[in-house]
């Protein structure tokens, strides 16, 4: 059946407002009487606060409130509840918030910060997780008695020890990944506004409006305002990539300043603050060993990780739960052992970033796979083919693979590169590939993985879709409109999507785990089908036809067996509305996918379907300078069905660019806990002149449970980039770089050592 909206290259609905500059980001929103908040950060990495004097700041004309930790109710946020929005007693990192100011304009607020004097008694600081783990190391959080967090990260399947004995070939090595940051062009910000009854409205650029709502409700309770309403209104988001997946100190500070001043308070980060005080991707130290049989079948995979948890705990400490995905289910391997330790240090702390641990784990796994292939005498492509996951498999972690386009993706990569799949094929150049697995059908991280949708249709056939999901730039609003338009047989332009107000839209767990197309899509699909059923019933009665014999296209309802028997959609709607006992059509649908929470052993079918993919790259290494040039790049992704190929390409090329930066040039450089390159000049994300030719290959496997067959794609785009390049460098010049990023210095050092 020919689809009218789904599968088409349809422009994003919000693109016109963005190209004219009329879209309102948090930077652009002002409210009457609004004050501007600014935060003072610690100047030592570890120390006791011995004195804070805010008197001069308080006296500055234009300043309406000054707050320190001592003046706010006791409250801690974060997954481990160890993070107070304003620190008292001690500071544990150079991004600790020590005081905050609200003033009538940002310049006065900054001046006020300069007038606050803070004295610290410095304490010995720890910047290395290995040192922090040692006996007798100074404690970052004294109440915990150890710097190692109590985290349950341990996954075991099969019997690794036995498999080790049986393996004909074994490799072992250590890989390190760095802190990188989201670099959203729109910095973080919010406006906190309380009404007369202390109900809170947060203007926010969050990706998790309902989880944020919950966090703020809890916070209000701690601040003495139990039972108040919280409304989260999302302004247009200037980039997410996971950076808005948690609630942050600055949001609680804005609320506290709003409470104190009884005025709306806006806090927007400067670019320096964005680098300093937002949380980067979790860095890792991974020991991995893998073994295979003589025939090249993977027998075991054992991985141990140490994660620098920094000074406080955010999502970084939970990335092992996602790292388990590729560890257990990238390629077929029955015997797996994985443990991870998270360690407090006086460094910055990490949270969610696109891929959420998958890129880090895949770097180790796919580099190690290449080493094992070589040890066992197999070519890179062939070795992967032998061990590729197949549709219908159940992996040792309990994932039920439904569709799986891994083999097709691998073949597409090989062909796209013009590569035989063998080592050493092109003198002066190198080929490398790596594969990925990620969740593609939601992820039951919380007890609910659901998304609600409400739809109404008016007399003119114009549709309003209220969805709990958010558009963070990826185009979910457009995808939802396409799905609804397809089901209801109307033009996409007639579908309006409302997705940014918790007072209006039903609950959704949030934009994470690449779940929006699948879950929000299915939710919209369900609601649209309910409307369609109502429409066809009405038309069936009017046309004297069985509803199952009718279809809707281009705003006309017609009998499938005789197109002449028809009526316009709007006529049907008006007829049923303007009549005694009339009806206006509305529907709702809450879709919570049939996936599973992990059990205590971290096993369970986390997602309804899994997205597989493969990336391949051809590189040229300048042996004298160590610079790596990407000559060709192919990214093949199993997406189930491409609901909008144009938006899909954007996710793939955008993810690829981020992956290239992760692999070759991006790194947050810290010296004794101090960020040394917190600017767009010194933090090396890619410019338009750094992009290699990139082929995005879309593989469609028609996922039965996905809306029109689709799976998620938000994160996979950057998961295998780093190991693909590391493997290609090895192919080109015979050195393996095991630390990211693979800078010219690292490549040249390795070449000299050879």
């Amino acid at each position, binding site marked *: 059946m020919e689809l009218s909206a789904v599968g088409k290259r349809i422009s994003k609905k919000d693109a016109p407002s963005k190209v004219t500059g009329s879209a309102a980001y948090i930077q652009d929103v002002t409210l009457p009487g609004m004050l501007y908040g600014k935060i003072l950060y610690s100047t030592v990495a570890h120390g006791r606060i011995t004195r804070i004097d805010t008197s001069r700041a308080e006296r500055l004309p234009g300043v309406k409130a000054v707050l320190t930790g001592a003046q706010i109710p006791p409250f801690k946020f974060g997954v481990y509840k160890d993070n107070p929005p304003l620190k008292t007693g001690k500071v544990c990192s150079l991004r600790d918030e020590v005081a905050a100011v609200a003033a009538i304009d940002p*310049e006065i607020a900054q001046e006020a910060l300069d007038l606050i004097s803070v004295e610290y008694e410095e304490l010995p600081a720890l910047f290395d997780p290995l040192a922090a783990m040692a006996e007798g190391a100074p404690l970052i959080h004294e109440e915990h008695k150890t710097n190692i967090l109590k985290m349950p990260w341990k996954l075991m399947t099969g019997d690794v020890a036995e498999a080790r004995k049986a393996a004909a070939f074994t490799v072992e090595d250590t890989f390190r990944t760095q802190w990188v940051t989201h670099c959203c062009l729109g910095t973080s910000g919010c406006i906190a506004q309380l009404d007369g009854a202390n109900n809170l409205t947060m203007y926010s650029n969050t990706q998790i409006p309902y989880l944020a709502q919950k966090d703020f409700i809890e916070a209000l309770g701690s601040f003495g305002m139990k039972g108040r309403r919280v409304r989260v209104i999302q302004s247009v988001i200037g980039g997410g990539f996971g950076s808005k997946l948690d609630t942050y100190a600055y949001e609680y500070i804005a609320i506290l300043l709003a409470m104190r001043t009884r005025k709306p308070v806006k806090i927007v980060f400067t670019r320096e603050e964005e680098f300093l005080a937002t949380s980067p991707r979790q860095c890792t130290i991974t020991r991995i060993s893998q073994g295979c049989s003589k025939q090249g079948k993977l027998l075991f995979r054992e991985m141990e990780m140490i994660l620098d948890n920094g000074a406080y705990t955010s999502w970084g400490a939970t990335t092992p739960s996602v790292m388990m995905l590729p560890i257990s289910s990238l390629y077929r391997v029955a015997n797996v052992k994985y443990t991870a330790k998270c360690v407090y240090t006086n460094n910055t702390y990490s949270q969610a970033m696109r891929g959420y641990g998958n890129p880090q784990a895949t770097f180790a796994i796919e580099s190690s796979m290449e080493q094992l292939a070589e040890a066992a005498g197999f070519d890179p492509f062939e070795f992967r083919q032998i061990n590729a996951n197949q549709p219908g498999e159940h992996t040792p972690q309990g994932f039920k693979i439904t569709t799986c386009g891994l083999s097709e993706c691998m073949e597409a990569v090989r062909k796209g590169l013009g590569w035989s799949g063998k080592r050493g094929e092109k003198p002066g150049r190198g080929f490398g590939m790596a594969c990925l697995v990620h969740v593609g059908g939601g992820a039951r991280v919380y007890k609910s993985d659901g998304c609600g949708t409400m739809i109404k249709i008016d007399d003119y056939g114009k549709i309003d879709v209220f969805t709990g999901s958010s558009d963070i730039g990826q185009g979910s609003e457009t995808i939802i409109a396409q799905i609804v338009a397809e089901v209801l047989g109307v033009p996409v332009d007639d579908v309006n999507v409302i997705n940014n107000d918790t007072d209006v839209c039903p609950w959704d767990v949030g934009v994470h785990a690449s779940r929006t197309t699948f879950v929000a899509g299915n939710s919209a699909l369900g609601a649209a089908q309910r409307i369609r059923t109502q429409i066809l019933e009405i038309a069936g009665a009017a046309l004297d036809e069985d509803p199952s014999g009718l279809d809707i296209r281009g705003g006309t309802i017609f009998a499938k067996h005789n197109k002449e028997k028809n009526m316009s959609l709007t006529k049907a709607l008006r007829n049923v509305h303007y009549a005694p006992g009339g009806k206006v059509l509305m529907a709702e649908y809450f879709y919570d996918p049939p996936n599973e929470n992990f059990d205590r052993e971290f096993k369970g079918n986390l997602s309804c379907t899994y997205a597989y993919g493969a990336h391949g790259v051809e590189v040229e290494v*300048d042996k*004298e*300078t160590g610079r790596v040039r990407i000559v060709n790049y192919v990214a093949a992704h199993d997406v189930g069905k491409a609901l909008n190929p144009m938006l899909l390409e954007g996710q793939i090329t955008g993810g690829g660019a981020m992956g290239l930066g992760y692999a070759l*040039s991006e790194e947050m*450089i810290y010296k004794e806990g101090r960020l*040394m*390159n917190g600017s*767009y*000049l*010194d933090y*090396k994300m*890619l*410019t*338009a*002149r*750094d992009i290699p030719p990139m082929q995005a290959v879309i593989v469609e496997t028609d996922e039965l449970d996905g809306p029109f067959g689709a799976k998620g794609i938000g994160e996979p785009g950057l998961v295998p980039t780093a190991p693909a390049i590391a493997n290609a460098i090895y192919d080109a010049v015979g050195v393996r770089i095991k630390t990211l990023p693979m*800078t*010219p*210095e690292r490549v*040249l050092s390795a070449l000299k050592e050879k």
Partner: protein
Amino acid sequence: MVRYEYYKPSTIPEALDLAVRFGGDALYIAGGTDVMVSMRGRKIAPKALISLRHVEDLARFDLPVLGAGVTHRQIQESDAVRDRFSALHDAVSHLGSPQIRNVATVGGNICNGAPSADTACPLLVLNAEADITGPSGDRRVPLEDFFVGPGKTVLERGEILKALAMGAFGANTASAYIKHTRRNAMDLPIIGVAVRITVDRTDVRCGDVLCGTAPISEILGHFKDEDLRCEDIRIALGVVGPRPMRVPKAEAGLRGRIISEETVASVAEIAASESTPRDSVRGEAWYRREMVKVLVRRAVMKSIDRILRPDERIYPDRLW
């Protein structure tokens, strides 16, 4: 925000008067891409800015003299600079971004005094002299004496850099600037290398090998029997010391000598030993020293290529 008054003198005497009037409270500003950044970064807080944008005398574009107020964009668009002062053209083509190049000036780049200033090394090898004027009169300073330390030049308070007077070069001369960066735009150099070389003739038999992608040592192998002599050479390095610097010992190693694999390699080694790079956030000392060796060779070859194949605008897909 720093609060300052903004003045737009239209002649040099007017500008000097303002400078004298405000003393240490005023700063000159041209394109502003350094001054505005420093103010935003809270490094300086002048009470007055004296804009030099409207002083016509500073905008003269009269090769080999460049007014300090000439923008990088103007230099990039000049075919004459591209052909006869190629190293400078290389520098401005990779400096900042189009937005920066449209307003930023060569004088501003030099007066900011950064060891990484892209136009500094090319101007050093192009024999530039700084034309300075100030409350106490005019003076001329060879560019190698202009830089005193990181961010510091010989300019006294109130003095204005009027122009950069480059040398006049005859036939058989070409120059090149290589900016070694981590990404291909919006970047500061890990190191920068500029070379200007004059050779004794252009009728070499093996000129065509320069079209290939063979490594330098192989290409120079072909030059063995040519007896192509270097008559004059200047080499300047950026970000390997507190100031953009020439390397006279390295220059002496090739001046008057035959160009061959040995002489070029030796010159590169000497240049590396004369450099004093440091570890910094932007690069490590050992790597910078290695790159001096590699990039001096490449810059020499690129310059020779420009002499021997002057009409070729498109270079083959090679690494230098």
